[in-house]
Each structure stands twice: as structure tokens, then as C-alpha cells.
């Protein structure tokens, strides 16, 4: 029983940063912008979150600093791609390289220092339930936030005018502009939201996952999040499924290695990618849904003729 509980807890821990980063990138991409800088924004969020928490002793300040850093990085990206109409791929890649480098520099003096762990939320009665208590009702605030953000994003796209406008801008920026929508403005906000989520994912890494600073601790999670968005065909619910599936297979692989299952560790390490891609391809088979969700303008630069 205790073993199962531990497995479930590690799965949630492994999946949460992926979900946070992916759902933020999903909103960015639905507005028609491809930001390849997720990894860079995430690692910068991790280092500033750790530094702020370590300096002030408050994990909450750390989380706030990580969000602010993610947004600042995203706004830099937005300024380059929306205002100056720079190429999105190149700018996003540069943002990632920049983030990895700068985080290493900032983090130098913080390596090996003790971190501040973001505490779990205790819910009376619920947290005391067997199994579901510790797994579902004794998590930290970021786990709840990841679920709440995903649900809110799904609801926004389905039910609200803002969601409709974002989809419209991502689907055809010329038409949206002709109708009088501020394409760049909408995209600025979506990019900033993506940055905030990536920052939050970074905070989760350095304040919950391993509460210390390790250079390059994002370890490719930003790229996994990017891939999840595409394979989930831009659906928030499917992104959640994908993130948790990836986390599950990954953790199972680690456990399998620990108990000495005779499978090559390289194969186990690649398994999460294979399983997630296969599963998401299978559930994204519905062509109409894919057609509705795919942002047709993704990655294209838009400059209105004024």
C-alpha cells in the first residue's frame, strides 16, 4: 500500500512541471505563435525562484519571482517577434540558449546551497483519507494550480469570448485584423501567459521536485512540453493526459530499473516518449477535431499594412 502511494506521488511530481509548461505553451500556440523558448523560460524560472526563496526564506516569494522571470523572458520574445517581426523559430531557440546560459551564471553562487521547499497544503479530514488523502489532498499549491490552470484554459477556449478571439487570431490573423482585433496585442498576452506557466514549472523544479539549484535542471522538460502540445493537437485535456502518461511511464521505468528488471536502461529511458507519442496519436485520430484545434497561422509573422 505504501509502495503504491509513493509511486503515485512521484508520478504527480514528475508530471506537474510538464503539464504547467505545456498548457502555457498551448495558449501561446493557439494564438498562432510558436515559442521554442519554453526550456529557457523554465530554467530561468527555476534559478530565480530558487535564488529568491533562498534569499528571503519564503517559497512564496520564490514562486512569484519565477513567474515574473518567465513573463519577462516571454515579453522579450514577444517584443522581438511581434513588434520587430523577427522569425519565431530563431528567436525561440535563442531564448532557450540564452536562458540556459544565463541561469548557469546566476546559479553559480547558489549551487549546493540548501533550498526552501514549498510546503504541502493540509486539508482537514480530506488529507487524512487513506491513499487518496496523501496522493490527492496533501499536495503543494503548484500541483493544484496546474490542474486548475488546465481546467480554466479548457473552459476558456470552449465557453468564453477571449478564448474565441485567441482561436480566431491563431486561425487567420488577416481576418482577425480585418475585423478589427489587435492581433499583436492578443499574442503579447498569450505569450506572456505561456511565460508565466513556464516560470511556474521552473519554480516547481527548484522548490518542490529537488529543492536546490542544479545547473541545467530543466533537463529537456521544456522540449517535452513543446512536443506534448503538438501531439495532443492543441487540446488542453489531451495535454493533461499526455503529461501524466509521460510522467507515469517515466517513473515506472525508473522503478523497473531499481528492482532490476532485465530491460536495457536505454530502452526504458526512451519508453515514455514512444508510449506518449503512440497514445496521443491514437486519441488524436479524429480529423475534424484536429482541424478545429490546429492553429493555422502558427509560426507565421504578421505585420498589418498601415
Amino acid at each position: 500500500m505504501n509502495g503504491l502511494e509513493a509511486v503515485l506521488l512521484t508520478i504527480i511530481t514528475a508530471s506537474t512541471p510538464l503539464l504547467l509548461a505545456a498548457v502555457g505553451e498551448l495558449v501561446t500556440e493557439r494564438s498562432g505563435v510558436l515559442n521554442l523558448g519554453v526550456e529557457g523560460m523554465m530554467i530561468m524560472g527555476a534559478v530565480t525562484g530558487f535564488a529568491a526563496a533562498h534569499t528571503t526564506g519564503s517559497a512564496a516569494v520564490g514562486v512569484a519571482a519565477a513567474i515574473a522571470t518567465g513573463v519577462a523572458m516571454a515579453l522579450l520574445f514577444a517584443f522581438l517577434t511581434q513588434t520587430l517581426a523577427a522569425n519565431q523559430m530563431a528567436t525561440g531557440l535563442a531564448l532557450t540558449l540564452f536562458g540556459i546560459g544565463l541561469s548557469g551564471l546566476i546559479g553559480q553562487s547558489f549551487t549546493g546551497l540548501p533550498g526552501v521547499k514549498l510546503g504541502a497544503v493540509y486539508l482537514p479530514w480530506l488529507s487524512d483519507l487513506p491513499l487518496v488523502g496523501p496522493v490527492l489532498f496533501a499536495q503543494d499549491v503548484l500541483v493544484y494550480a496546474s490542474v486548475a490552470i488546465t481546467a480554466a484554459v479548457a473552459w476558456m477556449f470552449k465557453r468564453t469570448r477571449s478564448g474565441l478571439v485567441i482561436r480566431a487570431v491563431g486561425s487567420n490573423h488577416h481576418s482577425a485584423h480585418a475585423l478589427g482585433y489587435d492581433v499583436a496585442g492578443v499574442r503579447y498576452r498569450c505569450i506572456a501567459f505561456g511565460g508565466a506557466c513556464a516560470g511556474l514549472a521552473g519554480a516547481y523544479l527548484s522548490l518542490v521536485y529537488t529543492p536546490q539549484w542544479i545547473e541545467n535542471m530543466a533537463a529537456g522538460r521544456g522540449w517535452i512540453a513543446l512536443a506534448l502540445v503538438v501531439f495532443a493537437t492543441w487540446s488542453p485535456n489531451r495535454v493533461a493526459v499526455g503529461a501524466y502518461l509521460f510522467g507515469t511511464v517515466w517513473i515506472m521505468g525508473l522503478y523497473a530499473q531499481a528492482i532490476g528488471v532485465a530491460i536495457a536502461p536505454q530502452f526504458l529511458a526512451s519508453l515514455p516518449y514512444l508510449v506518449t507519442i503512440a497514445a496521443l496519436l491514437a486519441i488524436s485520430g479524429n480529423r475534424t477535431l484536429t482541424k478545429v484545434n490546429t492553429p493555422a497561422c502558427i509560426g507565421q509573422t504578421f505585420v498589418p499594412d498601415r
Partner: protein
Amino acid sequence: MENTDDGAAGHLLEAEEIVKRFGDFTANDRVSLRLRPGEIHALLGENGAGKSTLVKIIYGSLQPTAGRLRWHGEAVTVPSPAAARALGIGMVFQHFSLFDALTVVENIALAVPGRFDREALAGRVARVSEEYGLPLDPTALVADLPVGVRQRIEVVRCLLQEPCLLIMDEPTAVLTPQEARQLFVTLRRLADEGCAVLYISHRLEEVRELCHRATILRHGRVVAQVDPGAETAGSLARLMVGADVQSVCVAAREPSGVAALTVTRLSLPAAGAFGVPLRNLSLEVRGGEVTAVAGVAGNGQSELFEVLSGERPAPTPESVTIAGEPCGSRDITERRRLGAAFVPEERLGHSAVPGFGLGENVLLTRHASGDGLVRTGFINGGRTRALAARVTKRFDVRFSRQDQEANALSGGNLQKFVVGRELDRKPRILVINQPTWGVDAGAAALIRQALVDRAREGAAVLVISQDLDEIFEIADRIAVISRGVLSDTFAADGIDRERIGMLMAGAHEASPGPARDPRT
């Protein structure tokens, strides 16, 4: 354009001395325009005459460099399309401002202010569309709808806002004759209810039939204001162009040659989510004739062109033959070597590389056609330039310096160049998609004449076009494509516009191939 007749009070909209400059290009040069309630007012002019710029200023998508607008006699600025809509100005765009991935009601919601309530809005859409006889399914996905229905969405979207002025930018360019007539009924009814309509078109006959007044623009200036009913199509064209437009001279037809290009029972799945599948297509193009494929844009024309040119392979080699050779799986160079030439629809980016000079662009389609432009991998620059010069001279392509980049040419000149580049080879088979789309009248006449002349020299010419006037002007035989299904081929003098309109709407779809839900 003096301040005359009945004073400002009677006017709905007055545009006074509007000037709009883009850099040092003046798109509108002191343009004035007045509209009364209930008036259908045509705005005529060639491409680049400044019509779209003027209506974009009225609709708030562009701001004028100088001049002002009056609405009901009051000076107004229209900072944005939303402001224009708030005033009561609605616009139906030439290239629709619709979102393929959204449903009908979502598309409409984007232009209607207020609370976002899908159900209530769907109810209003249903009411308005019923009232005006414009049937719409609010939950349908726009990507699945034919072009005529898409325009209906735009019209209904405007009507929901109870506009006082409706701007329509080339509304009939994408409609079948029947659909156009239905649109005229709606527009006349709106005008009777007091709504003004600003109607942009270059189809002069329909302007004469529909519009009460016409303002004619040339090079950004107003050159005349006329009663179109009292003019002839010829006199209107003269005003637009500033000179007589030469009509195409079609020589008598030689007895039909052999089939030089054939398509046999060709089916091809759709490429991508928004593509059109081709279903059981058969077609024969004979030497000495111009065969035309008519149809509303987006019904499989691009797909047909791609499979003929070899950009997409056909399922079996025999389903496409060129000069008797099965070509279904051969690439475009092999097809060119058999004497075929291809001119795709999109000039910039498909026919020509925008940043390349004309010489380099000549090389792109002529490198393997036996002109000695390339020897053992090296380009012969002299020959390439000479060939480009020959094409530009013969087809009257105007440019400011030798070896100018393709994107510096105007649409008409570039089209003359890309058509000329192929005709210069004297191809035995020519396939051309939308030969004069968006091209000024002078260039269009030259291109059409060249196509007919080439056919009379014995070549098999296949013209894919959505312009029925053009088809009737040059084609000997006509087939119609609708949703990837091709009709039988008819002799041009044995079929009228009515019948073609019915075919464009899919009258022939039921017989060949698996039928989908029939269109109304």
C-alpha cells in the same frame, strides 16, 4: 465633384478629398464620394486604382493621410473596424474574413459586440437568415462549407448589426450566376429598406444591372461619376482603363487534333485537412483547341493542376497521359520534356521566386527544355538573360531595369512574364490555372490572345479559370469542376451560363463517384 444638388443633409456618407499614401505611392489622391440612403453605388476601377484602399478607410482598417469623412453630415473619424460597425457600417470582404476552424455562429460572434452567448446568437442568426432567405446552419464548421455559403455568413454577419451602409468588395467573383442573382435580390431589398450599398466590382454588366450610380477610379483619382444604366459596358471599361480595351480575336477553329493530354478515371485523396479530394475525373484536351475547366475557386482546381503538372503523383501511371505517354508517376521535368508547360495560379512564390531576377526565374522552368541554359551543371548566364529579354520584349513586360527581381513587377506584368516564359517554348501542351486572376484588363487581353493563338498553332491548351467571361471569350470546349467532380465536356457554343451555373453548383455530382450531401 462640386458641392451641388441637395446639400449635405440628404447624404449618409461623404468622403471628402481623401488622400492615402503608402511611402511615396499615392493610392488615393483627393478622392470624394457621396452616398445617399437606399442607394446602390458602384465603385469601379482596375486593380490598383485605389478601390480597396478607399473602402478600407471608410471601414476603419486604414487611416487616411488627409481628407475627412462625414456620417449623416457630421465629421467623424473611424479609428477601427469596430468603430465603423458601431456607426452602422458593415463590410463583406473580397477574400472573406472568415475563420475556417470555427463554426458559423462563432464566426459571427467575433463581429457582434456584447455578451458571448452562443445559443441566443444562433437564434438571431436563424431569424435573420430566414427573413432574408439566406439559409445557414449555425453549428456548421466553415471549412466544410462551399464558397457561396461562406459569403452568406458574411452577409448575415453584417445584417445582424442592422447596417446603414453595406460595403461589398467583389462579392460575385466567387459565386455561380445563380448565387449572384440571389445576392442581388438581397441587396435590392436592403436598398429598399434604406440601406446604402457600396458595391465594388469589375463585372460591368452586373454593375449596369444593379447599381444606381457609379464612381470610377483610375490611378487613385476619381475620373467620372455616371449613371451606369445609361452607359454601355464598353464605355464603362473605357473610363476605367483610359483607353479602348482590345477584345480577343478568335480565329476559326481547325478540325480537332488528337488528344494530347488525357486524364482517365483519376481519384486522389485530399491533401491536408482543408484539401479537396478528386473523384473519378476524366478529361481530354485536344490539339488546336482551348479547353476550359470552369468552377468556383476551391473546388479541386489546384489539386487538378498539381496532378497534371506532376507536383503530386497520380495513383496509376495511365491516369494521366501527355502526348500519348503514361505520365502519372513522372515528375514535372519529364513532363516538360514531352512538350508540356505549366503555369500555376499563384504568380509570386509558385510560378516565380520573388527575390530572384527575371533571368533566374526563366531558368527555373526552362533549365531542361533544350535551350542550352545549363551545360554540365553550369548556368549559361548570357543565354539565360537573352531568353528573359526575349520573353519580356515579346509579351510587353514592363520593368525598370534589366534583371529586376520578380517581386518588383506589378501583378499584370509578372503574369505576362510567367505565361510568356512558357509560351516562348512553343509548348505542344499548356496547362494554365487562373491565367488572368487579379490582372488588369490590358494584360488580361494580351494573355488571352496569346493562349488562343497558341492553340490555333496546334497546341492543346487547358485553362482552369473561375472567370466565366474569360472562358466564353476563349474556350472551344468547357467542363465544370465542383467539389472534386468534373462534369462532361461541352462545346462552348452548345452550353449557356445557366447550365454552367448549375454545374458549378454541383448538378453533375450525383452520377460519378460517391456522392456527398447535396448542396442546395
